[in-house]
């Protein structure tokens, strides 16, 4: 059987790889390897659904996201509420993303949980780039937001620390 990208379905994880990565974005690559966002980027560079199963534009200012029922690494559930929390936490800050404000969601954006699997982003104005910006919306466990957060545990704000 051939799976995604022509790869065979996974067997149990095996072996260790030792990596030296001098790239200045190593901090971000660690995030991408351990965290999911609504979308990810394929090997070729194409934006693809990740934590969300699919999306659709309800109208030009409303993006509907459908999530699969999956689990975080601690066994707790990841659903539309997790996305709601991730967006809400992000919108608390003026410039959370280290690369810059180009990844900002408009702070007037409202997120609505329709049901466990469905959430809607209500944008204050048309933003066709929002799908790419969701690559920077890290979906984290409730324990993360409570115990660590993006800089919160050190008493810092989330500015420039997402």
């Amino acid at each position, binding site marked *: 059987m051939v*799976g*995604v*990208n022509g*790869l065979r*379905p*996974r*067997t149990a*994880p*095996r*072996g*260790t*790889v*030792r*990596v*030296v*990565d*001098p790239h*200045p*974005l*190593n*901090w971000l*690559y*660690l*995030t*991408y*390897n*351990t*965290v*999911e966002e609504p979308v990810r*980027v394929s*090997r*070729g*560079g*194409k*934006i693809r659904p990740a934590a969300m199963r699919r999306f659709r534009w309800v109208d030009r200012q409303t993006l509907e996201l459908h999530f699969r029922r999956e*689990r*975080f*690494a*601690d066994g707790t559930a990841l659903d539309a509420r997790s996305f709601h929390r991730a967006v809400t936490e992000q919108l608390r800050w003026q*410039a959370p993303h*280290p*690369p*810059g404000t*180009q990844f900002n969601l408009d702070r007037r954006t409202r997120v609505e949980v329709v049901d466990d699997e469905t959430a809607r982003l209500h944008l204050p104005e*048309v*933003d*066709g*780039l929002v799908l*790419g910006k969701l*690559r920077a919306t890290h979906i*984290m*466990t409730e*324990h*993360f937001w409570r115990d660590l957060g*993006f*800089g919160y545990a*050190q008493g810092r704000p989330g*500015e*420039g*620390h997402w």
Partner: protein
Amino acid sequence: MIDAPGPWASGAFVLVEGHSVVHTERVATDGEDCTWLQTEDRSPTVRLHANPHHWNQRRGPRLAEVEFRNDLTSAEALDLVCDGIGEVDLVTEVPAAAARRVQQSRHARLVSVAAVRVLAGVLDREAEGLPLHDGRARRALNLAIDRAALVREAFDGHAAPLHGLTPPTPLTALHRFPGRLRGYPHDRVAARRLWAAAGGASRALRLAAFEGWEAAADVVAAQLRESLDLVVEVGVLDRDQQYEARRRLAEQGSGDWDVLLLDHGSQSADVPPVELHRAFVGRSGEFRAGPVDPRFEQLFARLRAQTSQLRQVLAANRIDRHVTREASALFLVAPRSLYAVNRHVRFLPYATSFELADTSVRRRHWSRRRRSRRPGRDEGQATA
């Protein structure tokens, strides 16, 4: 960024040891828009374990453990992956000058990918004594560059000529639709004519480059000297100087250079202008070294207004054509990302990031043969 280990999310791996973060300093670029200057802070080791709950089992994780070693320099890491087994399996950001060494190694192979990144020159349009405010002069600089020679001489073939600011990867083919975007040919006659028409230079041109791009800077300088009869002084900025240069650029201040060579990437290939063209030309661009371009802002607003992917591609193409026509930067090459990888590691590179979910090790890999020991360099050589 993740400050501490824990089962915080749902990715393919879980951070179980160490940290790799950046300390950030805010620099306003335009009104409330800003960028962050970054200083790295890494623990000597960062360890990831496979996430047993990850839903996408076809993708991965296929590795039980990933160990990032931050206790080695790039040169030491390259020695270890090329000459031994077990200490280092994968090195990223291999310089083109080291590619042949990897290719000739017994233990490593070279993996490369057409990355969504560019090496381009920021042009200081307000430089005194040079006509860089004039589009004819900027076009002259672009016409003076022999990109094929640059790829050959500075990158040993591991780069592609850049036309505009959209890197040529398979996914950006439509963005660069033939006939719609024409890059600058190498044309010394036209370059000299345009340079003279713009007034020429009353002093030497100062060409600076971020560390790692010295070879490219030398070739570019030689081509500018030859094509335009210019005096070109080359300088290389170390880490501290780069930090300061980024700050001055973002604050719209002047630097100690007229042309600054730097590389910049995009996190996706869908809409390259969001990160590339915006950075070099946009109102909030962290590399913009000149006045705001109202036409660019208008085109960027149109891009943002598109929710259809096809229309976004067309809007991106319009931006690229405008930036190319205006010669808003010195378009050079799209360097390939090069990796040195142990021969028993099946690594699949990404065009925009570094992810290991679908990387695996073969049965003969050291970690599957000897679980309890960490083989050394000499042992690795002896048993390979």
